[in-house]
């Protein structure tokens, strides 16, 4: 079976660019810990399953651009968002 | 001008424009000519299934470059006007002098 590289690479680059901008604010009372990102990952996988893949794509039954976006945002925050 | 004269001129111009526009649309389907759309419909689905994206980005990509340039110009002008805050240009503050001289 064939894996199409195009949506994976461009979705990852877009998510990475936007993920480097999520920075924690030290002196405020709002705290966004790891539980928020776990909820976003679970809801994101469910939405990627219910939005079936684009027409004419036959590799996996999920929307592959969505998953690449989620991975990109989380990696961007872990790398540059100190 | 008085009220009645303006109403009369407005109604006459409305009737003239309405008659002109409806006369252009009446019998429209006999003057439609397909022309070049036969070629577009024959080559287009070989490139991409979405015909709108084909026309906007492939056959008219130069116009989309102009539209992107409009977006850049609008953002630059807004940031020039609203980005500076208050600037002191010198001169006299007339409200303060009136209040101090009172």
């Amino acid at each position, binding site marked *: 079976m064939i894996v*199409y590289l195009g949506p994976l690479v461009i979705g990852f680059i877009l998510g990475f660019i936007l993920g480097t901008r999520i920075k*924690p604010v030290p002196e405020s009372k709002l705290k966004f810990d790891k539980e928020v990102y776990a909820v976003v990952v679970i809801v994101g996988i469910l939405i990627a399953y219910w939005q079936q893949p684009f027409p004419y794509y036959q590799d996996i039954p999920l929307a592959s651009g969505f998953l690449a976006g989620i991975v990109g945002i989380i990696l961007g925050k872990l790398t540059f968002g100190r | 001008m008085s009220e009645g004269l303006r109403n009369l001129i407005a109604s006459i111009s409305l009737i003239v424009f309405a008659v002109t526009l409806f006369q252009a649309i009446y019998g429209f389907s006999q003057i439609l000519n397909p022309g070049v759309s036969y070629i577009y419909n024959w080559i287009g689905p070989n490139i991409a299934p979405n015909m709108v994206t084909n026309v906007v980005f492939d056959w008219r990509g130069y116009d989309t470059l102009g539209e992107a340039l409009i977006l850049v110009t609008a953002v630059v002008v807004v940031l020039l006007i609203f980005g500076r805050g208050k600037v002191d240009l010198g001169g006299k503050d007339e409200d303060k002098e009136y209040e101090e001289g009172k």
Partner: protein
Amino acid sequence: MSPILKLFTFPISLIIILVGINTILGGHITPGGGFQGGAMIAGGIIFCIIVYGLKESPIKITHNFMGAIESAGALGYVFLGLSGLVFSGFFMYNLGTNIYHIVPPFIQNLYNYPDALHAGIIPYLNFVVGLKVLVGLSAVVIAFLESDKYLGDEEQNDNLFGEDEK
């Protein structure tokens, strides 16, 4: 803003950004594309900035970032067009699907988008237009929100030309 808004705005804005990314990727198959997907991502960012305010918002965009991304988007479009001029004789020739068979197959395989449908350089054009639109729309809202930053410096601005020292 009420505590209910502050509780769920950040996860929802991340989901809006993800749906916007999905719209940009399917520009040559489904309705949508570069302009529409970029506006959706900008909507997600603006939602987060308005609810939390400029100082405490988790998604922070500085002026240098906005300048760099917008320049990258505009220049990317022009260079894709110039590469069409260099390899064949036409500006913005679609080097992926070679409908006139001018370009050798080595360059055609280089510029093709690896996909089920061979659409050429159209998805790359959607990507750069999406970058430019999302930064442009966010910059206007951020400029309006920080326009009263200088109002507290009135005492500093009154003595700007040294008038009180005579």
